[in-house]
């Protein structure tokens, strides 16, 4: 298989397989999780403004107020924000990616200059490395970590790294690197529904439930 055949495969058959498994997995897992249902809360609710599932869905995107959590675990918060926002920028605001999305779902929006996206990619890579170092260094994180944590870090990191290297023409010819980049994204897509990366979907449900259960008591969590 030469470079172009490799690229053609990852853009064609490979992508079809990956998108297929991703969609299949996401739908199956969402039904599997949320069909378990929950009991209705029969206690009399205490209605307080700001205490509801939907409030928590949004509120939990910020560190809890006045708890000094950012100070206690700065890498988790700052590193976490930087790499999540960085990923979002790189994935959704890089012109070729927008073009890709447009071709699949027909939606498009303005992108950012590629030099800026490039800078964001470098920052994102750095943040992910720092977050990994933190996982290795912090006793709690190391204690909680299983193979899945290291594995999911890797499959998230590789698309960013290969994408950046492809644009920068590092190490391998562009065609090969681009193909590797797409392949790494495909691996990410395949893995996502079946690992902790699925939090990208369930985080909203989790926040909603937490907010709703506590909101019922008039507690804005």
């Amino acid at each position, binding site marked *: 298989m*030469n*470079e*172009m*055949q490799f*690229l*053609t495969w990852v*853009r*064609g*058959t490979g*992508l*079809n*397989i990956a*998108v*297929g*498994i*991703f*969609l*299949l*997995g*996401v*739908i*199956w*897992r*969402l*039904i*599997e999780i949320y*069909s*378990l249902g929950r009991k209705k809360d029969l206690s009399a609710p205490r209605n307080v403004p700001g205490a509801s599932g939907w409030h928590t869905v949004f509120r939990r995107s910020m560190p809890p107020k006045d708890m000094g959590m950012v100070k206690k675990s700065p890498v988790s918060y700052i590193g976490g924000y930087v790499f999540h926002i960085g990923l979002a920028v790189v994935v959704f605001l890089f*012109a*070729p*990616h927008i*073009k*890709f999305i447009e*071709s*699949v779902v027909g939606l498009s929006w*303005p*992108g*950012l*200059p*590629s*030099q800026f996206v490039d800078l964001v990619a470098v920052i994102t890579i750095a943040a992910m490395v720092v977050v990994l170092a933190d996982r290795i260094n912090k006793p709690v994180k190391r204690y909680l970590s299983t193979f899945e944590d290291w594995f999911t870090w890797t499959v998230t990191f590789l698309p960013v790294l290969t994408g950046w290297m492809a644009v920068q*023409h590092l190490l391998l*010819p*562009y*065609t090969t690197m*681009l193909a590797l980049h797409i392949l790494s994204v495909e691996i990410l897509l395949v893995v996502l529904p079946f690992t902790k990366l699925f939090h990208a979907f369930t985080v909203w449900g989790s926040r909603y439930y937490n907010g709703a259960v506590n909101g019922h008591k008039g507690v804005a969590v």
Partner: protein
Amino acid sequence: MQGPLIDTLARYGVSRRSFLKYCATLASMMALPPSAGRAMAEAMAAAPAAAKRPSVIWLPFQECTGCTESITRSHSPSIEGMIFDMVSLDYQETLMAAAGHQAEEALHNAMKENEGKYLLIVDGSVPLGLDGAYSCIAGKSNLEALKEVAKGAAAIVAMGSCAAYGGIPKANPNPTGAVSVSDVIKDKPIINIPGCPPIPVVMTGVLAHFLTFGSLPEMDKLGRPKAFYGETIHDRCYRRPFYDQGKFAKTFDDEGARKGWCLFELGCKGPVTYNACATVKWNGGTSWPVESGHGCLGCSEPDFWDGGGFYKALSMPADPLKVVAGAVAVGAAAGVAVSFANRAKKSGAKGGHETTTLADLEK
């Protein structure tokens, strides 16, 4: 510097000075040291006019003559064309006056007289299907002819994408079983000069190198001369700044197209295509596809014909939507099946509930 070539050039109105300059340019294009330009010029100029010139045999297989057209008609009169005066083109079906048995005789004579020394140029792919019956010359399949002629060749130049990588004949579903020269011949130095067609100066550059140094220039891993195929079209494209700024033409007649913005979104394959078009240009440096407003097709890359469509942006998937409905259906079915099993299990657990009493807290 004197010689028959200089005289010939003079007859066409090309001065010695411009010949030297051409050789220097060629040398620099091929990333050779400046002295190589002069060496090249001297070697070529010194070639005797009447005496024996290096023999070149040009075999056409499954091809469209576009490569020959490219070389001979690119711009005339040309120094490129003159280079062919340096060689003895003993067999070239399109160009030679002889035909039929005469032509075959010329071929066999050339092979016999120059055994082990002649240069073989091939354009077109080699069909393997039906025992090669798809393309025959003088009752011989291309495969037979190639094997026979390659045996005594010093080196082989696979001219154009068909000879280099199979090209359009090899495009899906490849009805003739077309393959490239390097798929058939394994024991000779082969250089690929892909392109549909290839750039004339690349051809002459390789010839000049062979004439001057008696060897093929440095190649990349796809067997192409590194000097011309070292960088992508995209890297050398004059529209590259627009790509970096995210300015793209969306259609061939929108404002972006008129302003000369990047053609990436219109399917330009420049980022994955290694060739010299952006620097050398075509028709004597007049223009090249991107400059004329059309994206690069990627013609110098293997299997460019099957790359998912010329007008589909490179970042675009071939056709992932066709799996969506199926995947969603299977996912939903799996999910619903699991949820039924889960509910059964949960109600089983509920049904099996024995009210805990105090005694039940103890093991």
